[in-house]
């Protein structure tokens, strides 16, 4: 071990990467592209995993990776600006440094779901950690059955990745369904919570794997809907969110019942969560 790794708990030390691009997705959400600053490729990630992103001197946050896992030279994150650290993150200028630790956590069960229909249900920024799974299924299109994406946002202005969503809808055996809570005058699509989209699709429960990410309340209703339609608890996967300071199981903040969301999650099969999810203030 080098002197540095002996005296530093190196897993807590970020690697400086260079911010290559900042794209505005909506009024408060931005997609950041990070590239290596030293020529070394970033570590490979699996769809559903997250990194800890560090703004020099400001703070560090757990952020899901929203990019394509096959693009090995960059890491892409989609961040909603809601507080001091996320604001600092999305207002960096291209060329500046962002610290990265990770990737951490469990991933969507894509390898175990070959040959099955993939039903993706996302709410708001919850689409970001699911996008790598969509990229994966589209890239290996023949390995999977149907791909259904059910996506709900607050308003048409809050929809992420709109161009991609439109394009994906033209891929064979792929169906993208979108709904918003408030449509406004010019919106001609669906209005209502994401669960209202289930009436537009035909699920084959025995061959369905559902991947769900969004606000916890939305996930509860989505799970209920999936269970009613016959999808088993083992085939429903949720990505959970808790306060996180270390991402390696030492800080204790991300506990959810017996689990550490950082290392046992963030992706859990619903069968492991069902005893805990309806407990208020768990």
């Amino acid at each position, binding site marked *: 071990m080098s002197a540095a790794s002996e005296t530093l708990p190196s897993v807590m030390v970020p690697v400086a990467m260079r911010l290559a691009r900042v794209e505005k997705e909506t009024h408060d959400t931005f997609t950041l592209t990070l590239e290596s600053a030293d020529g070394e490729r970033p570590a490979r990630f699996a769809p559903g995993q997250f990194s800890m992103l560090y703004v020099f001197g400001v703070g560090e946050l757990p952020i899901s990776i929203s990019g394509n896992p096959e693009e090995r030279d960059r890491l892409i994150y989609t961040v909603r600006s809601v507080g001091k650290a996320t604001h600092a993150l999305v207002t960096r200028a291209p060329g500046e440094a962002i610290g990265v630790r990770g990737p951490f956590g469990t991933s969507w069960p894509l390898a175990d779901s070959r040959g099955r229909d993939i039903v993706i249900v996302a709410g708001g920024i919850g689409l970001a950690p699911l996008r790598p799974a969509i990229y994966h299924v589209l890239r290996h299109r023949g390995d999977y059955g149907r791909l259904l994406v059910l996506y709900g946002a607050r308003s048409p202005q809050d929809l992420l990745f709109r161009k991609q969503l439109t394009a994906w809808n033209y891929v064979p055996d792929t169906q993208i369904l979108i709904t918003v809570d408030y449509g406004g005058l010019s919106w001609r699509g669906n209005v209502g919570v994401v669960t209202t989209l289930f009436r537009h699709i035909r699920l084959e429960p025995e061959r369905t794997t559902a991947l769900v990410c969004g606000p916890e309340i939305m996930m509860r209703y989505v799970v209920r809907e999936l269970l009613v339609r016959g999808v088993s608890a083992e085939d429903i996967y949720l990505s959970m969110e808790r*306060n996180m300071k270390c991402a390696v199981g030492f800080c204790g903040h991300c506990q959810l019942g017996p689990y550490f969301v950082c290392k046992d999650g963030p992706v859990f099969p619903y069968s492991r969560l069902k005893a805990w999810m309806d407990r208020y203030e768990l």
Partner: protein
Amino acid sequence: MRKRARETADQGQAGAARRSLLLSPAALGELLAALLRRGYTVIAPTVRDGAICYEPVNGVEELPAGYTMELEAGSCRLKRRGDEALFGYVVGAKSLKNYLHPPERRVFAAERDNGLFRILPEQTERPRFAFLGVRPCDLAAAAIQDRVFLKDRYQDGEYRARREAAFVVAVHCTEPAATCFCASMGTGPRAKDGFDIALTEIVEPGRHLFVAEAGTAAGAELLAELNASEAPEELCRAAEEALERAASSMKRRLDGDGLRELLYERFEDPHWDDVARRCLCCANCTMVCPTCFCVTVEDTSDVTGRRAERWQRWDSCFTQNFSYIHGGSVRLSPKSRYRQWLTHKLAAWVDQFGTPGCVGCGRCISWCPVGIDITQEVAALREAARTRA
């Protein structure tokens, strides 16, 4: 720890039953001096601010000769004993945790460099600790923290370095405090392992002696330097009997049987509201607990913005910020925070690390400003489960 386990095993194979040696208080002073000579920072009990604290010491004269500390729910009183006992009390607020998993430590310092940033090399020298007067509960607590920091997917390198360098002189407990319940947790009053040397103090009219046993080769080597004679059979028996008396005299107990399932089931029990009416959410219990490991991570910068540091500090699940995510805290009510602490300690810990996170040291009872007693709360929840179905 692997090293320690192997040494212990080797000794066991040699077939030599643990030899018990006789130490006088003066020989204990020599033992301490020998540790200082070996370059250890010796952490031992001493009187500070009207209480017994584990602090760095430079000689046996700094130990609290003739003191005891009366512990009760919400109270801790330093008192004079009528004798010259050096270990006539049990635990102070501090434990090994304060030194192996310190309250705050810098994780890194960095400075801006060419549009990026660069991590600065650490200069600080890490102390090598020798702990003198460690109680069996605290050894059990250190073993629990080992599981958390060293035996999971990620390891805490700083903890490992401090732990592996540590030398431990344990003291078996012959006079438990009113708040002790280690016997019911299976962690005391006799230390089973995890020490280099273990002592039993015998204080009787006319004699003040220690029976010493080595737990590792390093411990045996150090004891050999003291030219101590073998402890007579009669004295060893007296020490044994004192430990048996200590175990049977403990009034508090925590019944862990089926507790994990019970706590998970009683998530909505009205008794949590009862505790919440008393709990101040002050976090004292988590600070003094020798197993509580939660920390926060703070990032700071200097005024120029050129230099930044990351610090790790103890944190507590009793604060509202602890569970904050965008939109609010997951555990807003004091009830949910107390429930999280107790349920983590006695139930979730078992799922996470294979044992409960409580060793029966009783610190959370004494240092709770309103005297909330973990053994009583568990008993009340059991009673509720029995009567409220």
